[in-house]
């Protein structure tokens, strides 16, 4: 069985049947299917890399990194995505045998179940997953989540409006906006977005500009989309935005990019129009700041339960000192009862001394102390 094509519809229905689930309990159908063909799945989502295209072949100056668009063929379990959503991508890194999972925005237009999608990924120096993806060979199998996120065009195609739309993006933050604009142009009438669209993007340099050819094409075509590209030291200013879009505070706006840009954009909408602004931040892992500086936050499904200055004690002790009652067992790192997910920050295993700054990492809080700022999901 050499094919890695997704499963036909009848096969899907059988695989998702309750009978098969009961027969394969407690492991589930997927634990058997993956042994036969990694592209067969009943619940889980995986994808095969179809092609990898370098987006900025000329960029190799200091500070610039390779950017590539990776085309993926998901398994038939992929439910499709709305433009602007992201997906968690898990890759088994060769050598360490560890699966690393990171979030990437889908850069292609909205997809339907089973349809191919693209990710556009910048290979950060410290980004093990992004570097692996940018250098991937066709045929590589990756693990996916279903699409997630609300940074999307929130009106359905069934009830379209013709409101003006504004996108302000920087660097890799262009990807969700690109997905939305591509969707508008694809689904609109005669290649038109069907409403006025303003696309304002900031890139490090012309060489580092991704989607340059496509953006030039979009800018030149008669399609209602205006594209403004800013390169180099040209920073965002409220003055310039007001000149381009005088009524920006009354315009639905999507902003996505590095922290510096985002602060300026948020400030520009401060005191009116905040409800028009939707933002998405990309968080990069922060290096260790020191053993007992910073704040420790304990959260549960998005809400902060408690937050306090880092005392340097283990996370379990710090949580208990704040009056929280996280689950625990042996308190010596052997039973895994207290395993929780660290969402942000650097932590140190007090038994091994090993530090880690990976986002979204499972840790045993009884033997883990934070270094600097840290957030833990209890």
């Amino acid at each position, binding site marked *: 069985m050499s094919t890695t094509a997704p499963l036909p519809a009848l096969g899907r229905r059988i695989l998702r049947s309750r009978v098969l689930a*009961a*027969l394969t309990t*407690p*492991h589930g159908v997927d634990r058997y299917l993956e042994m036969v063909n990694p592209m067969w799945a009943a619940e889980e989502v995986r994808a095969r890399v179809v092609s990898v295209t370098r987006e900025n072949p000329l960029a190799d100056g200091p500070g610039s990194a390779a950017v590539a668009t990776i085309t993926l063929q998901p398994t038939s379990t992929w439910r499709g995505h709305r433009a602007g959503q992201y997906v968690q991508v898990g890759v088994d890194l060769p050598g360490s045998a560890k699966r690393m999972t990171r979030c990437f925005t889908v850069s292609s237009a909205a997809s339907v179940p089973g349809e191919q999608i693209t990710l556009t990924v910048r290979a950060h120096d410290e980004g093990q997953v992004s570097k692996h993806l940018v250098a991937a060979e066709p045929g590589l199998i990756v693990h996916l989540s279903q699409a997630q996120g609300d940074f999307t065009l929130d009106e359905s195609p069934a009830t379209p409006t013709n409101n003006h739309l504004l996108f302000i993006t920087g660097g890799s933050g262009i990807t969700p906006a690109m997905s939305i604009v591509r969707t508008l142009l694809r689904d609109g009438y005669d290649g038109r977005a069907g409403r006025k669209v303003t696309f304002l993007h900031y890139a490090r340099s012309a060489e580092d500009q991704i989607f340059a050819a496509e953006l030039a094409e979009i800018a030149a075509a008669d399609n209602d989309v205006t594209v403004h590209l800013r390169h180099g030291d040209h920073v965002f200013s409220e003055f310039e935005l007001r000149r381009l879009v005088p009524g920006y505070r009354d315009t639905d706006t999507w902003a996505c990019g590095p922290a510096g840009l985002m602060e300026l954009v948020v400030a520009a909408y401060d005191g009116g129009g905040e409800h028009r602004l939707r933002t998405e931040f990309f968080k990069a892992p922060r290096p260790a700041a020191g053993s007992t500086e910073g704040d420790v936050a304990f959260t549960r499904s998005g809400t902060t339960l408690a937050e306090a200055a880092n005392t340097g004690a283990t996370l379990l002790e710090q949580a208990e000192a704040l009056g929280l009652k996280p689950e625990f067992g042996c308190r010596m790192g052997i039973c895994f009862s207290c*395993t929780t997910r660290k969402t942000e920050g650097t932590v140190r295993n007090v038994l*091994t001394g090993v530090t880690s700054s990976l986002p979204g990492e499972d840790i045993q809080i009884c033997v883990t102390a934070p270094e600097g700022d840290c957030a833990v999901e209890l």
Partner: protein
Amino acid sequence: MSAAHIEDVLETLDVETTKKLTAEQLDAFGAEMDAIRQRILSDLGEEDAAYIRRVVKLQRGFEVAGRALFYLPPAWPLAVASLSVSKILENMEIGHNVMHGQYDWMGDPGLNSRMYDWDNVCPGEQWKYSHNYIHHTFTNVLGKDRDIGYGILRMDEDQPWHPYYLGNPLYAFLLMVFFEWGVAMHDLEVENIVKGTRTLEDNKALHAGIMRKVKRQAIKDYLLFPALTGPLFPLTLVGNATANLVRNIWAFNIIFCGHFPAGVATFSEEECENESRGHWYYRQLLGSANITGGKLFHLMTGNLSHQIEHHLFPDLPARRYPQVAEEVQEICERYGLQYNTGPLGKQLFSVARKICKMALPPKTAGA
């Protein structure tokens, strides 16, 4: 003086000569164990991942083969054998070890202790509490480790005798036959309900979890798979039950050899108050026993034939235990600590003897 009596005396002597270490020696001993642990942790990688994935593949192969062979009535013994091997591998080398968190570092949800549930009527969630936490933290501490006799048997001199324990061998036999059910009921602490220190109300939350798991397991093995073989329904049903029985007997015997052969020490709660890491290691070592054997044997026991190494390093991948066993043994020799090991026959005999001996009231002093 009979031969058995001489053995009794020797055994008593053996218990009394359990070597005590000073606090400094315990710290040094603990540091040596920590060093082994550290070395293995930093060496975990592709070989360990490839190993467990290979075992999973092998087990799935036996599972599918076993289920399929029930369609050929003459191959019935082969089907039962194949399914038994699948269940043993799944419970011992995969389930037990994965649920210990031995492979959590891989980041694979299919091999993660928080996601994995095993092919056993005991819900993984409940087992992890009583086993990973209670048993592995308070190993062989009387009154704390409910794995000493599982609340059913008398397995230690210091458990007060009661006429109920005259049935010790019978209870042990029944526990062996119904082992997975015993494991499933372990968390309900029935003995404490009888004693009145636990109420049925306390068990309410556990009941639902057990019933859900029992239902799923029973539907699979005793309804759906037999039904799929049509007219062969009874044969398949009996075959599945036999495979579960084989797994029960095997798991029971291996596990009993891990903590109950003669010479394994138990500890009092006072001894373990505020214990050091070194003392915890010391207790794990003296509270466990190994079984010698070949590679295949170790695989089929889920490497619990290296119970000592498992108790010293419960969260390290089990395939590492044979690799560090020699070193652990050498360290024990240097500290003059007993390293309890022997072939399966010897350890089984020793366990059986203890089960029978503990059925009877302790001999009064001077008798």
